[in-house]
């Protein structure tokens, strides 16, 4: 069962929880308000690298949030609609995503080198300890 050679990274807990799942990675910021459809979980922002992709059920990895503070409520809408990401990993978490993760109870860790994670990687997130493991 134990796989060897994984990468273990230690960051900072924003909101607690333990999940395992598949990474969806972008090196662009994400604005939840106006850029992610709260009913489908699909990224709608024109020209965004994730445009047309669904973030729901994925471990969403991106550098930092951006845009309107209403974005925190959009994250909450995603969660209530069952379309939220499993967890969020940031390089630097900012107010909108932090508050959104807390009110929506989405595990969230920041201060992680998001560039070392690729879309499709299996991740083990222990947000309680601020730990993200990439299984290789």
């Amino acid at each position: 069962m134990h796989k060897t050679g994984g990468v273990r990274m230690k960051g900072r807990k924003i909101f607690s929880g333990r999940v395992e799942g598949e990474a969806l990675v972008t090196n662009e910021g994400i604005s939840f308000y106006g850029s992610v459809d709260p009913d489908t979980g699909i990224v709608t922002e024109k020209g965004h690298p994730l445009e047309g992709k669904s973030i729901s059920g994925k471990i969403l990895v991106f550098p930092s949030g951006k845009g309107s503070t209403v974005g925190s409520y959009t994250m909450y809408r995603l969660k209530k609609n069952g379309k939220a990401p499993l967890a969020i990993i940031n390089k630097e978490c900012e107010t909108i995503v932090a508050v959104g993760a807390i009110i929506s109870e989405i595990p969230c860790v920041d201060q992680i080198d998001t560039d070392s994670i690729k879309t499709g990687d299996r991740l083990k997130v222990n947000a309680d300890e601020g730990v993200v493991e990439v299984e290789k």
Partner: protein
Amino acid sequence: MLEGKHGNAVKKSMEILAALGNIFGAEKLIPVKSVQISGVSYDNLGDAGLEFLGIMAEDGKIKVKTTLNPAGMDMENWKALGIDPEFARKQKLVIEAFERMEVETTCTCTPYFIGNKPEFGDHIAWGESSAVTYANSVLGAKTNREGGPSTIASALTGLTPEYGFHLDKNRQAHFIADVKARIDNPMLFGALGNVVGKIAKGRIPLITGIEKATTEDLKALSASIVTYGGAPIFHIEGITPNKTETPEEKVTVTQEDIENAVKEMNDTDDVEFIFLGCPHCSLEELKKISELLDGKSVKKELWIGVARPIKKIADEKGYSKVIEDSGAKLACDTCHVVAPLKGRFHSIATDSAKGIFYGRGKNNFKTIFRTREECIKLAV
């Protein structure tokens, strides 16, 4: 409070405040004198936002004086503004959730006109960028630019993390904006905010070359400067109360800069809808508007945004009757930015530079940027 002994709403609030404090390196949470909650219009909240408010209202009660930002409609007179009944039902549920938290449900972006007026040096936790900027710059109170959930968290705990604009070292000017242009009415103060905000890009200006400014002028500048990219605090030499170091960098704002900004905020001549009162009108502004409308009859849809308590005084003074007799509508509790107006009109005329920005961005309106007097002329 983090353990939940004070109930779920307080626990959730403390989680929000502690996380923000950690992210921004705050050393502690500090008490606040008052809160202004943003995120009140159902148009922005949606059903999920409404549900979140319902959960916080289950056991959350405010600990400090708390007022509300504008809602998506006039809470009493919404039918006259053509609001959809289903929207009205949802908007009422939003306000009822705040009532359960014991918030003063007077919905306005100018809480400082209706008794939520902090003193110099008070720490507060306010949302609504124009009010944040007015409180920091004109009143000398101290607040960050909070979002909806963090203002609720501060209201239910009476606390905010100490970082950013709560600390004097972060309130110092970064550059001088020396004004060599005629700036003498709220519309032109809005244009100045557009020019200086774009130069500032998040930094703090010390504005020089302004001899006098009324409350209404400063309200317009506060709304505009932060909308167009400035920090939510500015200094004006000889006018605003905060002390600041004098920066070395100096930028000159010319008459041409102002004229170009005004030109850029105009992109049509076809007026469909006129809105005055962004931010909400003072009593003085209602008096002037009533004088301009006295004996006239409006031919276009004209809304005047105002806080309900100010309208009540205007009722007693007779201004409201003159305004309403002309066919103009006094819109309490709301404004053209947060009301569900997309698609109802195609263009807006206003004297508010902030109103132009959101008229375009949120409602896809073509815009006409004129003085109050010229806007009234367009309406009658």
